[in-house]
């Protein structure tokens, strides 16, 4: 696909489409554009159906600065030839972006690199943490298609890669959400289990579910291995994921000969989850434990 065609190419295409000779179509086009410019010289608008309107727009005299000398100059009043595409042409050309619609923005939402049209609004454009994620996603959508379209649009305007800080913002928001949930669950059962080490050693597997997944920061929890229990099962009960068995093994290495077979009655120390970064909701933490565990098997 050539990106630039001239009058001659256009004449060829026209000749093919309408079954007239090449010379005839070229003559037609030449006279068409001649007539348009002539009509415009008479200060008249030219309207072509489904294409657009050519119009002379008066420009008022204004002051400017000479680019070379830096002197002030006055640009005299003049006319500018403008073309206003018809709706049909507008829609046709904008087809790749036609699914976009204007979005109403809430107060305090702003995007880097997006021009604000009214100056006074500039002060409110600081990026805030509390941005609704929905809006951000919509914006990212815009950007994705933007990049997609840039393959087609040869002269694209410069856009800073705003989506990087936005993705970062989403990550931070998710991280703080996890942290918040973690903390909430953390403080609650600590008051219920007043003497966890004693209680747990007596009824190691009858503790409530919420308690089992908790880490107990002050004193280390102990578990007596019962029949049919494996390190993996204990890890699942204590940490919410069986991959964390390796940390129990590491903590009790001196008592365990073979991590696959743990003798009944062995008293195991359950490590504090903060000691090994144990977090069942964090896939990275799980993956790390898995890799570590595979080393011992």
């Amino acid at each position, binding site marked *: *696909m050539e990106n*630039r*065609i*001239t*009058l001659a190419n*256009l004449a060829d295409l*026209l000749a093919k*489409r*309408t079954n007239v000779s090449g010379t005839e179509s070229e003559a*037609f086009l030449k006279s068409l*554009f001649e*007539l*348009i*410019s002539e*009509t415009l*010289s008479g200060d008249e*608008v030219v*309207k*072509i*159906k*489904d*294409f657009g309107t*050519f119009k002379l727009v008066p420009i008022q005299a204004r002051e400017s600065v000479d680019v070379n000398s830096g002197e002030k100059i006055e640009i*005299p009043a*003049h*006319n*500018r*030839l403008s*073309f206003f*595409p018809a709706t049909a*042409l*507008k829609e046709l*050309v*904008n087809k*790749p*972006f036609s699914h*976009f*619609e*204007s979005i*109403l*923005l809430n107060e305090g*939402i*702003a*995007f880097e690199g*997006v*021009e*604000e*049209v*009214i100056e006074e*609004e500039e002060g409110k454009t600081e990026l805030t943490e509390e941005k609704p994620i929905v809006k951000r996603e919509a*914006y990212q959508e*815009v950007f994705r298609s933007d990049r997609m*379209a*840039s393959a*087609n*649009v*040869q*002269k694209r*305007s410069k*856009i800073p890669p705003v989506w990087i800080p936005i993705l970062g913002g989403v990550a931070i928001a998710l991280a703080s959400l996890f942290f918040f949930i973690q903390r909430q669950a953390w403080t609650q059962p600590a008051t219920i289990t007043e003497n966890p080490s004693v209680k747990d050693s007596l009824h190691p597997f009858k503790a409530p579910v919420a308690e089992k997944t908790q880490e107990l920061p002050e004193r280390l929890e102990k578990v007596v291995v019962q029949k049919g229990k494996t390190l993996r099962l204990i890890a699942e009960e204590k940490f919410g994921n069986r991959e964390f068995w390796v940390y129990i093994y590491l903590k009790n290495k001196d008592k365990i000969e073979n991590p696959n077979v743990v003798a009944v009655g062995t008293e195991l120390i359950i490590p504090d989850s903060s000691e090994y970064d144990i977090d069942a909701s964090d896939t990275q933490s799980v993956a790390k434990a898995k890799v570590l565990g595979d080393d011992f098997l």
Partner: protein
Amino acid sequence: MTHKELISEMAQRLGLSQSKVSDLLDATVCELNEKLSENTQIFIPHFGVFETRKRSERISVNPQTQQRYLVPPSIVATFKPASGIKEQLKTMEEDGK
């Protein structure tokens, strides 16, 4: 000058029937629109260049309600007049003064 006036003027100049000119003009418009939607530049000597440009997204503020809208990017058809015709129209204005 409207579409109809343009056709009749063209018919007179070229010595063709109005319906023929109308067909040719429609075909020309079709061809131009098609090429423009393919992001092709159309260069017409002594007249100008038709091309498409991408307008990037922007935030527009309604001054009355202070509501802010994120206006999506769009592709628009533009026309850049050739320098010859620009000068011609400028001087025409000065002569008219």
